[in-house]
């Protein structure tokens, strides 16, 4: 039997994309830019945010007016954020399952981790693809430190590119060093405040996760 014929009889689960990275690197800002960009391309979307002991990021996105607030779920880690995206991602898996039950047509669920450190990674049980967001304000030595988040993610996003001249960062050298430690796997540059570089992130999701191109 052709797998496509087989698939026609059973709904294909929504793709789950993780977004991790250090505190303040711009994960929520990236989500806020991705929502309208993905919706403009017709992607049926839902969001999960992770915070330590609040629903701060979820409330920020719900209030943004960018998406139906019912499509935004909050997970409170209660401990180190990586514990609920890697060691025991049950809370996030249940939140994603719940969104799929409530919104049967959803194609993509973005799962934003709480701010963590360079060792943070996502479990394959939770996500199909994950991005790690760092920013130039953290210093251009971040890629050279070879944190597992930087090395293992499917796409590394270097955000706040507009700040490079003000913090003494050679952006192109930082990008080259990131590519070198990642064996040339994808590195994208964004300035989420102005929406620069977002199209490339959306295209990567469409190509590698949603299989649209």
């Amino acid at each position, binding site marked *: *039997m*052709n*797998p*496509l014929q*087989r*698939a026609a009889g*059973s709904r*294909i*689960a929504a*793709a789950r994309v993780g977004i991790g990275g250090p505190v303040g690197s711009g994960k929520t800002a990236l989500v806020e830019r991705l929502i309208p960009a993905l919706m403009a391309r017709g992607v049926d979307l839902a969001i999960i945010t992770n915070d330590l002991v609040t629903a701060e990021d979820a409330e920020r996105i719900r209030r943004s007016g960018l998406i139906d607030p019912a499509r935004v779920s909050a997970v409170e880690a209660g401990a180190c954020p990586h514990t609920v995206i*890697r*060691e025991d991602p049950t809370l996030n898996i249940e939140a994603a399952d719940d969104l799929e039950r409530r919104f049967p047509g959803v194609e993509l669920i973005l799962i934003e981790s709480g701010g963590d450190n360079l*060792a943070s*990674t996502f479990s*394959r*049980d939770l996500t*199909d*693809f994950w991005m790690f967001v760092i920013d130039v304000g953290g210093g251009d030595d971040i890629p050279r430190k070879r944190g*597992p988040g930087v*090395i*293992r993610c499917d796409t590394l996003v270097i955000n706040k590119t507009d700040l490079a001249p003000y913090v003494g960062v050679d952006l192109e050298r930082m990008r080259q060093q990131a590519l070198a430690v990642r064996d040339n796997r994808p590195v994208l540059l964004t300035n989420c405040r102005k929406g620069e570089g977002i199209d490339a992130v959306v295209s990567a999701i469409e*190509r*590698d*996760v949603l*299989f649209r*191109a």
Partner: protein
Amino acid sequence: MLRLHGVLGHESDTLYHARLHALEHHDGIELLFVPSEEAGRKRFRLATDRGTDCAVSLARGEELVDGALLYIDEEKAIVARFGRQRVWRLRPAHAAAALKLGWNAGNLHWRVRFEEDCLAILLDGPLAGYRARIAHLLDAGDIVELADV
């Protein structure tokens, strides 16, 4: 792009044996080599050994195994092949070393299996990176490497 969803069966299934055998004679079997560290993925995009661009998705409860049949028609079949999982086996020299090794493996989030008196570490990256993390235990003779991976 060939969009594939779900595992049809296994190449050893009697249900598919005759058709796969016939396709084999016509050079119609394509192999999709999946790196062992990527085996847990439920969605991925990879090219077969013949260059067919495959966009693969699995159900959440479904698992990809070596020999999984992903596609079959009159012209060709696509079968998943896994690279061999690299395993680094370590034997602690004494109980205190075993505690230290266990602590390090847990703290470093290594994927491990327990094999009697050895710890088998399933490698997701270069061995040198792993070895560097417990070099002090190896140098002191607290941990013995059983074999190269």
